[in-house]
């Protein structure tokens, strides 16, 4: 009986594995993280770090999906041009948020745990990151949209996308699309150095 359930669960996990290509997702993430660490090692200043990280992050993160989910159902009321503008501004914020977590020269030690496949085409990879003497649990969520790209990063239980979603919700309720775009413009134009 046990063997039967084992075989059935193996079949389910294999199907998940075949359709989701979990190893591909893992390789994709490890490659991106490796590039980020190499850049962080050589950068001389936070602004130089951000400049150098930008192309790597643009390639590794699915900003379209991220922006859409951060804004929520209100996204449908955006025109195509507004959607592009929101994605551009949100990308700037995310790149800045991600870059600000690194200090040039100080490198994190990352260990990867077994990847999970919560749904076909989706993979979650949990990692333990040791940085500046503190240990953090970081989960990367990736989706296959013609290549595996990151759609959310969850640090110690706090999801980046969920965090922005709650903020955008209030803006949208108060002033709709314009309020969201104005808030994005304001935040993206802030100097953080």
């Amino acid at each position, binding site marked *: 009986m046990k063997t039967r359930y084992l075989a059935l669960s193996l079949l389910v996990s294999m199907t998940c594995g075949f359709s989701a290509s979990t190893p591909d997702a893992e390789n994709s993430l490890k490659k991106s993280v490796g590039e980020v660490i190499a850049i962080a090692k050589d950068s001389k200043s936070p602004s130089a770090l951000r400049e150098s990280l930008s192309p790597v992050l643009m390639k590794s993160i699915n900003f379209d999906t991220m922006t859409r989910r951060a804004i929520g159902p209100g996204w449908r009321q955006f025109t195509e041009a507004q959607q592009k503008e929101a994605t551009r501004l949100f990308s700037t*914020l995310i790149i800045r948020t991600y870059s600000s977590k690194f200090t040039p020269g100080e490198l994190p030690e990352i260990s990867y745990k077994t990847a999970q496949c919560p749904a076909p085409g989706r993979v979650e990879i949990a990692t333990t990151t040791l940085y500046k003497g503190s240990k953090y649990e970081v989960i990367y969520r990736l989706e296959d949209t013609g290549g595996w790209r990151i759609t959310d990063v969850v640090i110690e239980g706090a999801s980046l996308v*969920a965090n922005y979603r709650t903020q955008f919700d209030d803006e949208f309720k108060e002033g709709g699309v314009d309020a969201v775009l104005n808030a994005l413009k304001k935040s993206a134009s802030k100097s953080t150095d």
Partner: protein
Amino acid sequence: MRQSITFLTELAIAFFWLHTGFASSQTDSNSQIVIITKDGAKPAPLTKNGTPKNSKETLFLRSAVKEVPLAPSPQEKKKPLKTSSAAAQSSSKKPTPKPANRAQTNAEAKKDDTITITKKSQPVSNDDLDEYSDIAKIADPAEPINRGTFWLNHQLYNYLLRPASKVYEFILPPPARQAVRNVFDNAEYPVRVVNHALQFEFKRADLETRKFLVNSVAGVGGILKVSDKIPVLSNVPSADTAQTLAKWGIGHGAYVVLPVLGPRSVRDTVGMAGDYALNPISWLSYGGVGGATTLAVSGPSAARNMNERIRIYDSATKNAIDPYIAVRTGYIQYRDQAASK
């Protein structure tokens, strides 16, 4: 032999079910489950497994609403959203159900003794755009006051604690800061072990005790965190009083922003009092030790916490749309995760 044949048949059925499930379209026009729209009944969106997708719509058996004509397929009616990802292509506008039609259909269903199915809410919404709708909700009835305290804390962090934190970093090189962090983490052992026991996690309490002994003896009073080199001791989840209260089924309560200390839920504020009582550093003030000595001992701990707090605060607020909401959401998600361990 017969058992093996049955087993193989089950395997084949399971394989077939999985693959036909994955291959099926988002809305199966032959589906027996429908939703009511302003244009009448239309097939309910299905998951790839053939089960109804999570949505706020009420689901009906087709036989319960067979008199309502089927709506045209979404492809005929709606222009798909223009986005670059495949996930976006699967999302389409959900028409608002017309209350009159819905009520009428319900009444007719009751009259005919047919069955209606109301889908229970699930943690993850099926709407691609609404995936994060249920995350990090907490009552915040005192928001105006909390925002005021949040603003005061912001000034305090920026103009007093941040410079003090920089001085601390300047005085102590990174290895010394790490040693301070290790010593105080080790000293907080009673907080963790008591709470592991209160959560009936006796194995963790045992590991925590071993960790304390290893770090205290081999790590010279906790200066070195030797336990990090021992796999079984390197990842023992932390425990605190608020986490214990959460495991006992006590909810967050309202959100509060405490002066200087920052965000808490009512449950965490109560838990903080428990942690204070269990923390040996705070026992000094009750043990006849002079104020200056207590300050000298607890000072580095406060500086250590302050540095960590400022780093997390900056990370949450610097690129936020609304820093107050960002900190509130981040804090509640973090605490929820700690309670779930």
